């Protein structure tokens, strides 16, 4: 934008299920300040014009994934979106599409998290005890780390789900975020949970409905590329069906490093803040 605006017009979709029958749009005008983000604007509006305005946010730095919103026709993180990068001083803000609205800009993300949990998004191994009381580190080469590293940057903001044309119409489809998360663990050599994840993935909830529109990858604020993860997952499942998949999992446990002394200037770990806290039981695979 060549001209810095003096005023920003926010057109916000409002909906309070206790009062409203249908969502409606309300307009607010706030002065532009240097570095103003959409989240800053919402906070200003809540402060000076509409205390009842509701949204989710937490970290203000694109890490927590709470403030996913539909901003000027595209799912984005409100905290990471500068007004100047929108190319206009009119900001259209709505809750993420493809989800029910809890209130104002708060979407109901539970269907996404239910689909996520159903695909066992965590390290699954036979040696459960080793995970919780490790005797060493798991061997993993830098090449093996690269196979899943990009997909581990996902912050579960739901922007990919809001952009997915298949998820918009097909309620049985798991969606880009849960599938990417499942692939992140399938591609991790420390994990041995492919067999556990396979039944839901190989069925109707799996990646088969995806026809690679690529919108999920385009809107992802963390550059995770869910579209790529889904295609890699399809390849993995096809190779598994053809008995051509090479299982290098799970990574072995390496012994404790030998001949290495602790540096003198590293302080001891602080004492547990809750010494009498109940011990967490390991999760069975």
């Amino acid at each position, binding site marked *: 934008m060549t001209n810095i605006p003096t005023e920003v017009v926010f057109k916000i979709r409002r909906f309070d299920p206790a009062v409203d029958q249908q969502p409606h749009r309300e307009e607010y005008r706030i002065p532009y300040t240097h570095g103003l983000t959409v989240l800053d604007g919402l906070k200003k509006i809540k402060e000076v014009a509409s205390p009842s305005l509701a949204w989710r946010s937490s970290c203000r730095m694109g890490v927590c994934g709470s403030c996913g919103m539909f901003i000027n026709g595209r799912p984005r993180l409100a905290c990471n979106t500068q007004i100047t990068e929108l190319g206009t001083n009119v900001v259209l803000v709505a809750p993420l599409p493809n989800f029910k609205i809890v209130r104002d800009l708060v979407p109901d993300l539970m269907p996404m998290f239910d689909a996520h949990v159903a695909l066992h998004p965590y390290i699954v191994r036979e040696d459960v005890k080793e995970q919780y009381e490790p005797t060493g580190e798991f061997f993993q080469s830098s090449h093996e780390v690269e196979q899943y590293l990009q997909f581990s940057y996902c912050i579960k903001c739901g922007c990919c789900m809001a952009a997915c044309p298949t998820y918009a*119409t097909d309620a049985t489809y798991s969606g880009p975020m849960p599938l990417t998360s499942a692939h992140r663990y399938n591609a991790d050599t420390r994990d041995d949970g492919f067999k556990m994840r396979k*039944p839901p993935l*190989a069925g109707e909830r*799996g990646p*088969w*409905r995806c026809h690679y529109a690529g919108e999920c990858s385009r809107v992802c604020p963390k550059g995770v590329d869910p579209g790529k993860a889904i295609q890699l997952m*399809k390849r993995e*499942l096809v190779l598994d*069906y*053809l008995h051509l998949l090479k299982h290098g999992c799970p990574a072995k446990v390496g012994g404790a490093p030998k001949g290495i002394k602790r540096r003198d200037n590293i302080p001891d770990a602080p004492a547990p803040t809750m010494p009498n806290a109940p011990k967490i039981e390991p999760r069975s695979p």
Partner: protein
Amino acid sequence: MREERWWTWHILASVVILVFLGLHMVIMHLEAIVGIFNPEPGHPIEWANVLSRMKSAGFMVSYIVLLGAALFHGLYGLRNILFELNPGAGTKKALTFLFVVGGLALFAFGAWAAWQSFALAQAIPTTARSL
């Protein structure tokens, strides 16, 4: 599990189609350069060339394989498109049943036609100029 299996065959069928369509292009449109499966001089659709391919058991089998691959690939793709309209579970089952039965019927009819043309060609002398 079924979707994984069907998707795999969908991909394998596309490879079969790609190979056979490539072969078709080579035989029909690159005859001057490659010149395979056209033993007689002239265009690939000259009667003598057509008859020689009809007499070939390999061609008869390839027609049936191509028919099966194209039917499966096309009908599975159409089923996916219809499933994106988000029909109910009962409609999905009915559509799947319809496509399986319809596909098998079309395949049986096409395979029978390929076999009949092969059998007919065996009865025609190579020197015959027309039916």
